[in-house]
């Protein structure tokens, strides 16, 4: 630590004596071994430096695409006909429906969410098995929004050095003004983030109008307020502390990983011993070994979580690849090959040091298993979606009384039937009953058709509950007979059946 620290202090403090204190504070950080140490550790302020390169471009692309989807998706329209909302993605809580383009989910089909969660977990595990914390580095909303807030911060308060200097010097009116503008912009982004969230729960254009004119439901404003607060706090102020202290995934990830998983790795076989540029050239000219790492610390300066990747795997490292970009840029300037930091494994470093070939093994038991589970779960979901019934019938037998004996000795059973119509238009159904030879079926409150057949109308995307009484004239009926209710769509002939029992007293 001492050698590294001296170097960095020398570099940083040549600008400002005030920075010395900051750097000292940052580096002393933890408790001193000489006493009990502080009860509470202050946060180390992180000023990540801007960087450009392949991974930065990937991150910008994902940020723009991800935010565009999040902010604009509620406005995408999808024509479902006259009896359903025209919003492509809508969680209709009062109507108890979830719409996703051509998919409509009813509350009893919420098991699809189980499937989605299985898929999400397995995709996360697969990403981890292939290339470590891909989710953390590129896709996690905490990363994406923090990145967005960093960009605003750099735009207003300047890049790392300007920002640090301004913070350390006596604050001028300009400093205050810049900070005020930054926080205002952060709050605007946070507010828009919360605003976009509520648009998924109601017709977006209508709700925007209502929000603007103050006529939206109170709960909408409450949720916008809560999400504005959380976005502003988590992305603006908490940042890497969310990943380090709050998020469970780094811990789970560390337990799930194996020696073949590619991670952002400092190739110490190539980097060590760290040697100053001039010294390294001298040594190489003499044919002596010299590490490629010049201890320029660019990798540390660009890191959004304040990690020194050269210390090895770190729970705080979100593996965003920005240190790769920073190091590659430096290597290019020095005329050395890129890739001193790259996606690699510790195992390969050791193998190279032993003169063996590195191993990149993507097809492993765990990647195959994760992929298989993804394919199976996804396949099951697709199959159930494709074969989803759009009519349904469920039957509940009366519990009390189980059966009724009529005055002529015949037996009657009562059932409550619910007919489900998942079509977006009104449908007409016929209900038949099979299983007993001589029966009379009566639909309470449903007028019969002209030909005497019971004829049940169910509204679009609705259910209808009916009471059905069945009287058996066959004497004497057995104590329990299995019976079938058959629901037929009169227009299409589509049929659905439900099984139940017909009960009768024991013959004495």
């Amino acid at each position, binding site marked *: 630590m001492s050698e590294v620290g001296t170097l960095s202090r020398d570099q940083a403090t040549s600008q400002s004596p005030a920075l010395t204190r900051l750097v000292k504070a940052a580096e002393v950080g933890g408790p001193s071994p000489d006493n009990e140490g502080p009860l*509470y550790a202050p946060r180390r302020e992180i000023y990540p430096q801007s960087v450009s390169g392949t991974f930065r471009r990937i991150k910008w692309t994902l940020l723009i695409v991800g935010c565009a989807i999040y902010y604009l998706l509620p406005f995408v329209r999808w024509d479902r006909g006259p009896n359903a909302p025209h919003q492509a993605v809508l969680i209709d809580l009062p109507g108890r429906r979830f719409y996703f383009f051509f998919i409509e989910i009813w509350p009893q089909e919420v098991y699809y969410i189980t499937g989605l969660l299985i898929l999400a977990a397995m995709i996360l595990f697969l990403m981890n098995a292939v290339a470590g914390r891909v989710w953390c580095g590129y896709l996690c909303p905490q990363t994406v929004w923090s990145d967005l807030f960093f960009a605003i911060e750099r735009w207003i308060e300047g890049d790392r050095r300007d920002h640090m200097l301004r913070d350390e010097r006596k604050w001028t009116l300009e400093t205050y003004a810049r900070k005020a503008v930054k926080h205002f912009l952060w709050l605007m982004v946070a507010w828009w983030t919360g605003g976009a969230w509520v648009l998924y729960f109601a017709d977006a254009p209508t709700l925007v109008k209502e929000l603007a004119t103050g006529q939206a439901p109170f709960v909408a404003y409450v949720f916008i307020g809560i999400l504005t607060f959380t976005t502003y706090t988590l992305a603006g102020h908490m940042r890497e502390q969310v990943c380090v202290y709050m998020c469970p995934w780094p811990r789970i990830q560390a337990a799930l990983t194996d020696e073949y998983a590619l991670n952002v790795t400092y190739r110490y076989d190539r980097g060590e011993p760290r040697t100053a540029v001039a010294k390294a050239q001298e040594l190489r000219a003499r044919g002596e070994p010299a590490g490629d790492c010049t201890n320029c610390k660019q990798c540390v300066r660009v890191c959004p979580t304040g990690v020194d990747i050269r210390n090895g795997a770190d729970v705080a490292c979100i593996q965003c690849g920005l240190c790769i970009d920073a190091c590659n840029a430096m290597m290019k300037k020095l005329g050395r090959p890129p890739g001193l930091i790259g996606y690699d494994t510790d195992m390969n470093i050791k193998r190279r040091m032993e003169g063996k070939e590195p191993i990149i093994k993507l097809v492993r038991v765990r990647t195959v298993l994760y992929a298989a589970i993804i394919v199976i779960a996804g396949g099951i979901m697709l199959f159930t979606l494709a074969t989803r019934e759009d009519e349904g019938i469920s039957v509940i037998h009366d519990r009390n009384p189980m059966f009724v004996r*009529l*005055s002529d000795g015949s037996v009657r059973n009562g059932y409550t039937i619910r007919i489900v119509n998942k079509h977006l238009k009104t449908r007409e159904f016929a209900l038949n009953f099979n299983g007993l030879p001589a029966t009379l079926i009566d639909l309470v*409150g449903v007028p019969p058709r002209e030909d005497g057949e019971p004829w049940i109308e169910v509204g679009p995307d609705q259910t209808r509950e009916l*009471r059905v009484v069945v009287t058996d004239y066959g004497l004497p009926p057995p104590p329990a007979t299995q019976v079938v209710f058959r629901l037929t769509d009169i227009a299409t002939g589509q049929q659905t059946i439900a099984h139940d029992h017909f009960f009768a007293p024991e013959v004495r």
Partner: protein
Amino acid sequence: MAHKEVDKLSGTATTGHEWDGLKELNTPLPRWWLWTFYATVIWAIGYWIVYPAWPLLTTATEGAFGWHTRSAVVADLSQLHAQRGPMMVKLTNASVAEIVADSQLTDFARAQGRVAFADNCAPCHGAGGGGGRGYPNLNDDDWLWGGKLSDIEQTIRHGARSGDKEDHEGNMPAFGREGMLKADQISAVADFVRSLSGLPTEPGADLALGKKVFADNCATCHGPEGKGNRELGAPNLTDSIWLYGPEKETIMDVIYNGRGGTMPAWQGRLSEPIIKSLVVYVYSLGGGEK
């Protein structure tokens, strides 16, 4: 006080405590964690101000906005009533016949009637109206006082032997206790009553005596053929439904001691729409007559 043991791997001091070889690192909490604690304290103070919080001697602090669980329940109930209001007005203004003719009103009345039945009627008639010994089953097609909509409405509104001015009257006298019939006559007529619905009689039963006793004493109310009389609530004795049971001992007990179950009058105790909902619900259980 101070101890200097430092964990070699992490460079962090330990607390000095050891459990089976495990030592706890003395890692300080991040400061923001402390802030969340202060935030909860501030939240609690805000909570005291906004909500009823501190118990006083006879009451409690009211809260800045007067919010109260009781007032919240009242508000919820009034919202529910407002929601149901239009349907309740329709139920109040429509006759039960009109309600049954309208499927939307029927669904509403049946749903509401089911709940009202469980609250008011189920103690005697059973959940689902299955009845019990002495309490009629409302699902079957045998009605003491009639099973048409108007009959059911009349019974629910005014009850049976309830003391209401328009209630159903008519009692089965205690033929034995009052000394009107002798034991052998009661036995004979009980056998005769069983024979009316085709039930087996005791060997050596005097059916002729029974028939004569029936014609002299019972036919007035139960009819010459024993088919009953709904005006008087006299059950049909020829079907297979028995209010108290078909055993000879039970029938003799009924004849000796008399019977006359009561049902309270619900008019005045329940609101108009609830009474009509109960009528529609009972009617739709399966035994309603056209």
